[in-house]
């Protein structure tokens, strides 16, 4: 008796696979050739949504405080008052020095004014990358490589992408990103490696003159602070030590960035 061979059943999945592949290729090509165009469109669509999200989130941002004990709140209140008193004195000193520096720079022809105050409309963890989206763009005078500051002296990154009404700021602390800095105390140059979340790492020989609290500045500017040392990991068996640094202040809870 002959048994006829059954032909191999056709895969019902093949059309679906081709469809997925086709859509992927189309989106890939659109992103590659028209990335800037689509960034402009999606940013314009997303901007009002981000603004509404920030507005709606504001009343609920301190909701956990309702569940704290009275004693803990009183203690924290007193600590904060003490800090305010100490900081007020520092602000007075700072204003005096800042005015003097500004006068000196104006006399020498270097103007420190002219920074744009921008709102941060999207930040991690909404974004999986260490980037911030601000609501000023090329129409407001922002260009690629413009420097972004958290305050008068703390520089956090540079503008990497500009649309007419928004820009993307890439933080120096982006993982694996290298940033050249200068140690304020000694003037030595180093290259910090971003560790994400406002943190940096630096590996140096054990006898390198870097101590806890040292400040690293952006090259060419003795008033642009990049990070401070907060921990030094030194192993007696290794000839290197790992320096851990952090941006002073919390980049991800700040509402504003100053762009130069």
């Amino acid at each position, binding site marked *: 008796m002959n048994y006829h061979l059954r032909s191999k059943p056709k895969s019902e999945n093949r059309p679906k696979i081709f469809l*997925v592949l086709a859509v992927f290729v189309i989106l890939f090509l659109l992103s590659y050739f028209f990335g800037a165009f689509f960034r402009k469109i999606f940013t314009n669509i997303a901007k009002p949504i981000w603004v509404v999200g920030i507005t709606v989130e504001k009343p609920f941002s301190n909701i956990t405080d309702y569940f704290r004990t009275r004693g803990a709140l009183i203690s924290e209140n007193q600590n904060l008052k003490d800090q305010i008193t100490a900081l007020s004195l520092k602000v007075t000193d700072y204003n005096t020095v800042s005015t003097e520096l500004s006068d000196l720079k104006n006399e020498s022809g270097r103007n420190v004014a002219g920074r744009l105050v921008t709102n941060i409309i*999207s930040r991690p963890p909404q974004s*999986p990358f260490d980037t911030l989206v601000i609501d000023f763009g090329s129409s407001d005078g922002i260009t690629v490589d413009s420097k972004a500051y958290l305050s008068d002296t703390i520089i956090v990154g540079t503008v990497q992408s500009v649309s007419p009404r928004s820009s993307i700021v890439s933080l120096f602390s982006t993982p694996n990103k290298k940033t050249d800095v200068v140690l304020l105390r000694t003037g030595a140059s180093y290259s910090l490696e971003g560790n994400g979340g406002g943190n940096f790492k630096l590996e140096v020989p054990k006898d390198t003159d870097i101590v806890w609290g040292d400040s690293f500045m952006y090259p060419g500017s003795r008033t642009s602070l990049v990070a401070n040392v907060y921990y030094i990991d030194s192993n007696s068996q290794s000839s290197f030590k790992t320096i851990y640094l952090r941006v002073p202040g919390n980049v991800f809870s700040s509402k504003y960035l100053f762009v130069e």
Partner: protein
Amino acid sequence: MNTIPNRLILFFIIFFVVLLIPWWLSAIILIALTLYFPLYLEVLFYGFIFDTLYSISRFHFVGLVSAFVGLMIVTLARPHIRT
């Protein structure tokens, strides 16, 4: 649930959600939707949006490629899973 009007409404809802919530939560929701719907092509579009809005690295297709890989795995594995 897998009708076109439902998918369209869900598309716009998820679009708002992925813009506002942390990215890892968006990823979990998108993975769940990819597993639930037979052919959830919208996940490729969301990967495209992530890359367009947030990515500035040299290879700025991480979201799109991740969505493609995930969708392909689900599409290839689904016929072999007895339901």
